[in-house]
């Protein structure tokens, strides 16, 4: 039950994008097409789970034992970057279609603050291993949800008569604001 709550909390109630403002850059950048949004979402979820695992291990088995908590930021980011790079390499080698669908989104994920945020949350909240993984899955699902909803809306908005200055990022942000209002309905559900 605890795990389920962690999942729902990360995915819906405390949605990374709409409540914590994490991963806004790709949220605005890659939400213009449904196909790329869902690919991006999946790739991010994958990396989030990996990050959750690796950062948990790194934090609890290297940084804490040696009293190196202050190295959190540089070491997390380096590990995430190298991990993403490595995964990209592997995918490229294994399957070209998979690479076209997911792999090309990987470089974008390195500088996604949702990933680093996830790693920091895990160390901050003292999640255990399973909780960390579930948290990663939930956060990824929440990110994907927000991204996919937004992509659907934006595909629709492309047909709309949005004032010129508001096209693109501004209307996306405002839509996200209204979505955030809607997500407030889930408050208190944790």
């Amino acid at each position, binding site marked *: 039950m605890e795990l389920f709550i962690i999942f729902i909390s990360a995915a819906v109630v405390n949605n990374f994008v709409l409540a914590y403002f994490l991963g806004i*850059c790709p949220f605005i950048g890659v939400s213009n097409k449904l196909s790329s949004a869902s690919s991006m979402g999946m790739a991010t979820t994958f990396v989030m789970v990996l990050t959750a695992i690796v950062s948990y291990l790194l934090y609890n088995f290297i940084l804490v034992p040696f009293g*190196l908590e202050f190295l959190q930021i540089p070491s997390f980011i380096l590990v995430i970057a*190298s991990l993403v*790079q490595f995964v990209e390499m592997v995918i490229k080698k294994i399957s070209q279609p998979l690479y076209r669908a997911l792999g090309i989104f990987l*470089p974008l994920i390195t500088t996604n603050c949702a990933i680093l945020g996830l790693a920091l949350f895990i160390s901050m909240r003292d999640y255990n291993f399973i909780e960390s993984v579930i948290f990663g899955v939930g956060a990824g699902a929440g990110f994907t949800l927000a991204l996919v909803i937004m992509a659907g809306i934006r595909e629709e908005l492309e047909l709309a008569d949005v004032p010129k200055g508001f096209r693109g990022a501004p209307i996306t942000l405002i839509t996200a604001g209204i979505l955030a209002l809607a997500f407030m309905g889930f408050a208190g559900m944790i």
Partner: protein
Amino acid sequence: MELTFWIALATMGGLGFVFAGALAIADKKLRVEENPLIGQVNDLLPGANCGGCGCAGCYDFSVQLVEGKKPVNGCPVGGEDTAKAIAELLGLEAGASVKIVPRILCKGGNKEAVKKMTNYYGPLSCKTMHIVAGGDKLCTYGCLGGGDCVEACPFNAMIMGENGLPIVIEEICTGCGICVKACPRDIIEMHPIDREVFVFCKNHDDPKTSKAVCDVACVGCGICARKSDGGIEMVDFLGVINYDKLDPEKIPFEKCSTGAITRISKN
């Protein structure tokens, strides 16, 4: 303190080592052959992989740019400098030397062209007018005045004149030719900017009909063709210019009763 210092040093150094090693291997083993242009464009980009352009990272952007799916100024981070650099790079590839601009080969504005007695109702776009018997004007070849080319121009280099004919602002025009595709009646043609002589008409009707539909149509009298030594050929009552053979000096512009063939000079 000493120990922590050294461990910190070793941890970060080690991580760096692993990462660099992985990258080095990747660099060696997984290099994929591709259009060299993509790499060149990629080098010009900021490389922040921020996704602001809507692509999956800078590399994806350069691929799409080279494939023509993204504009040169599509990178919001790089800004104008990057756009210019890329444009230069691509310009070198295209090898364009003389500027090419669109010419609107119809003079039948709202005054000159004869109107139908029916009023067209519906979307005011050339394409849609074209499928409903051609809008308000009787001429079935000429400009419809719906402004599809103006709409289509990505650089706002075209405006709709007061007489219902589009005007090209040559300073802004990049010669992309999108307006040509936008015109359902194929009135717009791309020409080098220094070309001077044009037949500003596309009407293939016989003399009587073309006179009836427009004051400034090419009526197909053929005077210009006869004097041109093969520079102009009459095709179905319309003068068609062969620019390889054309000698502007030989053309009796003043003899053209409707002014359809005109020499434009810039000074």
